[in-house]
């Protein structure tokens, strides 16, 4: 059990680059775009003097920590790189928060970024350097839960499709999203099959992007802005590989259950459906979002399809999920995603989310799920 860092650390500035197939931009361009927006948001004019340490999150960095240090010219201070599958962004944030909470540094810059579109392939890379464990595709890994869930709870492809439709709609309202196009359930059902039951529209695309957050001790936050957002809890949990775990039931993802237990204890959340007002959850595939509604305790296990039909998670629903369109419309530059979610939650809590603003939200949750999947990161932010 974590000791928790509730209210000891605050976010005073956030930034996010344009997400997309940024053929014209290198990592440096996106890192600078995101970090300087965060500086401006925090009112930081002299980052050389005001940023004490940097934590980076990236899965495909070509130059490691120097990628960020050289881009921002932040030298002669700690610069570290964190990697934890698709939860990399949330884990980088967790390291930054830990450094501040431990009293090592006052003000830390967290930068998540990735540039997968320099690899020359449209989907994930395929490697044939093993005989066991194939096929090795993210869609294949995440779709493995569908068959048993469908048979057990009677859900189906249309329920998944409605999640894609919702997120595509939300994405049209987010200035920095990659895809800004409404789609229909029919579009999803008729699209090319990737891994049954996922068609192309059930899958998040790959994209390039960067996002940043400036965090500091809560007692220093007023030096930056009056409406700083407090970190209520942040957690990472790694669970057994579902492909080898002798007790996995294919109905709920263990890493989410474990990380939720821990982060809810830190944040004092006992009734997530009531106490969480807005959430950004990992929707690498539509089924990931569906299971996450249940694994986070937003709704009862097996009841997700009724809530999807009722619009519980729509922008005007009881618990809006993926208000910016999620991975579905931003794509998934792995290291950036978790920090991009924190960016969206900070805007939501500060009432700066424009057309997609959720009214009266004071507690926001963000969630990453990665690996096969094995790792989950959750951050809860709040205004009080």
């Amino acid at each position, binding site marked *: 059990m974590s000791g928790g860092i509730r209210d000891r650390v605050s976010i005073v500035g956030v930034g996010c680059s344009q997400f997309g197939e940024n053929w014209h931009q290198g990592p440096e361009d996106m890192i600078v775009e995101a970090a300087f927006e965060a500086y401006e948001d925090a009112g930081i004019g002299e980052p050389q003097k005001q940023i004490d340490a940097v934590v980076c999150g990236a899965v495909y960095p070509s130059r490691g920590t120097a990628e960020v240090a050289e881009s921002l010219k932040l030298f002669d201070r700690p610069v570290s790189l964190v990697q934890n599958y698709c939860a990399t962004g949330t884990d980088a944030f967790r390291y930054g928060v830990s450094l501040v909470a431990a009293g090592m540094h006052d003000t830390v810059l967290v930068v998540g970024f990735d540039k997968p579109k320099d690899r020359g392939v449209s*989907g994930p890379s*395929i*490697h*044939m*350097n*093993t*005989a*066991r*464990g*194939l*096929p*090795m*595709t993210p*869609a*294949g890994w995440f*779709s*493995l*839960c*569908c*068959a*048993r869930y469908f*048979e057990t709870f009677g859900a189906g492809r249309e329920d998944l499709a409605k999640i894609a439709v919702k997120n595509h709609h939300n994405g049209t309202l987010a200035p920095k999203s990659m895809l800004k196009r409404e789609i229909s359930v029919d579009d999803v059902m008729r699209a*090319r*099959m*990737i*891994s*049954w039951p996922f068609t192309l529209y059930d899958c998040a695309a790959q994209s390039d992007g960067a996002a940043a957050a400036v965090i500091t001790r809560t007692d220093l936050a007023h030096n930056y802005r009056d409406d700083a957002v407090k970190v209520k809890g942040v957690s990472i949990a790694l669970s*057994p590989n*579902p*492909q*080898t*775990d*002798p*007790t*996995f039931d*294919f109905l709920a993802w263990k890493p989410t259950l474990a990380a939720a237990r821990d982060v809810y204890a830190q944040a004092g959340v006992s009734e997530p459906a009531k106490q969480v007002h807005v959430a950004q959850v990992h929707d690498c595939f539509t089924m990931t979002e569906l299971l996450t509604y249940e694994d986070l305790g937003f709704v009862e296990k097996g009841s997700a399809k009724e809530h999807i039909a009722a619009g519980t998670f729509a922008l005007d629903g009881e618990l809006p999920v993926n208000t910016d369109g999620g991975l579905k419309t931003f794509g998934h530059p792995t290291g950036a995603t978790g920090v991009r979610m924190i960016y969206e939650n900070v805007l939501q809590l500060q009432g700066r989310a424009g057309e997609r603003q959720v009214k009266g939200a004071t507690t926001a949750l963000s969630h990453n799920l990665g690996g096969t999947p094995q790792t989950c990161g959750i951050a809860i932010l709040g205004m009080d």
Partner: protein
Amino acid sequence: MSEQRAGIVAAGCYIPATRLPLALVQGGQAGEGSEGGPEKAVAGFDEDSITMAVAACINCLGARERSAVDGLYFASTTSPFREKQGASFIAKALDLRDDVATIDFGGTLRAGAGALLAAANAVRANPGQLILVVAADSRLAAPRSALEMNVGDAAAAFLVGAGEVMAVFEHTYCVSNEIYDVWRGQDDAYVRTWEDRFNVLHGYNENIRAVLDGFLENSGTAVSDYQRVALYGPDARSLAGAARAAGISAPVLQDSLFGRVGNSGAAFTPLLLAAALEDAREGERVLAVFYGDGAEALSLHMVSDGAVPERGLHWHLGRGRPLHAYDSYLQSRHLDAREHDRRAGEGVPATVHYRERDADISFLAQRCTQCGTVHFPACRVCYGCYTKDSFESERLSDLGGRVMSFTLDYFFPSPEPPLVAGVCEVDNGARVYLQMAEADADELRCDLPVEFVFRKIHDAGKRPNYFWKSRPLRQLSDTGASA
């Protein structure tokens, strides 16, 4: 003085489920009488001589203790390796002992005779030994050639020993003949032949006659002494002609399986011999005639009734999955020039293969001796009780299982997309993530019973990379297996 006895303890065969209707070879379309017409058995895209040999050995061994096997002799003209043994691969996949004697017999279509006789001699020299002999072939003929109508793929295995035999080796005779009738050079992908009439006259006919004459004279027997004859033939017509000339006719002459399996090369006579041993009764005599660079004949005396293995010839014949397009056959054999060559690329590092072979080739899981949790692949610390290094291994290949959940992957490159994959729970509790062989999308469901088969996963690194797959168990009950 009585010579030490050697005989066949058990036999088993394997015929791949995939069938190529011969009408498709001739340019016909699926549906134009291709169903139910003559066909041949072809190894699936994930099968080769090694995987077929493994399957035949499993059928032959049945429930026998694997550690009792002292030798593994592999006969084939299509081992995937020019330098590296096939027998050691097969022995590893069967989880035989490390001190098993492994030998490859190759280079000729009658390699199976050499392997059987070598095993018989080894047993005569040391009567305590049990030698597993397996012949498998998967030869390529040039697409749409006349030869392609004849060649097919199959495997047959025999357990040779001194005790508890069903049939005792009696007489042998061989002739050697230097001729270019059928051959493959170092760089030939396809079987090459000289003109057919020359081949049959001076190759097949003359040598079958010579070996039979010599065999009968040496053994002091007559054709009429044999109740079953397994006779090689390059094609149905030549075989019928040679049989007629020798005075052998049905029902003594074993069904050559042309039109269903085809000429399975080094496995041809072994397959017919395995079939004969299923039906032969005590006291009968069985004659097997092999051909290739000469010919070889050997006879067996049944000292007990033959036995049909759980998966005998008729089980295999009854489970065909006909291809619907010639293109899909070409693609599965990498014969399609348009297809991206996936054999390039990194492949499995030799060091990884070496470390992982207990899991990947022998399919060994481990059970925690403290809490009983079963893990696959092996690991150092238990998932259940966190004890370190307290395990005993358990072989999964002869267990069954059920599908926990599955997917159909259209994205991962496969010669036959979509690739069906899923996590299975093995009967002993192990969880294994496997591709599924010979599965139709409409039969997939959670809890589907499966068995496990040794297959080729890909050719990355320009060498075959093997692992196990699951296969729906329904095929056993759906066919008229006479066991």
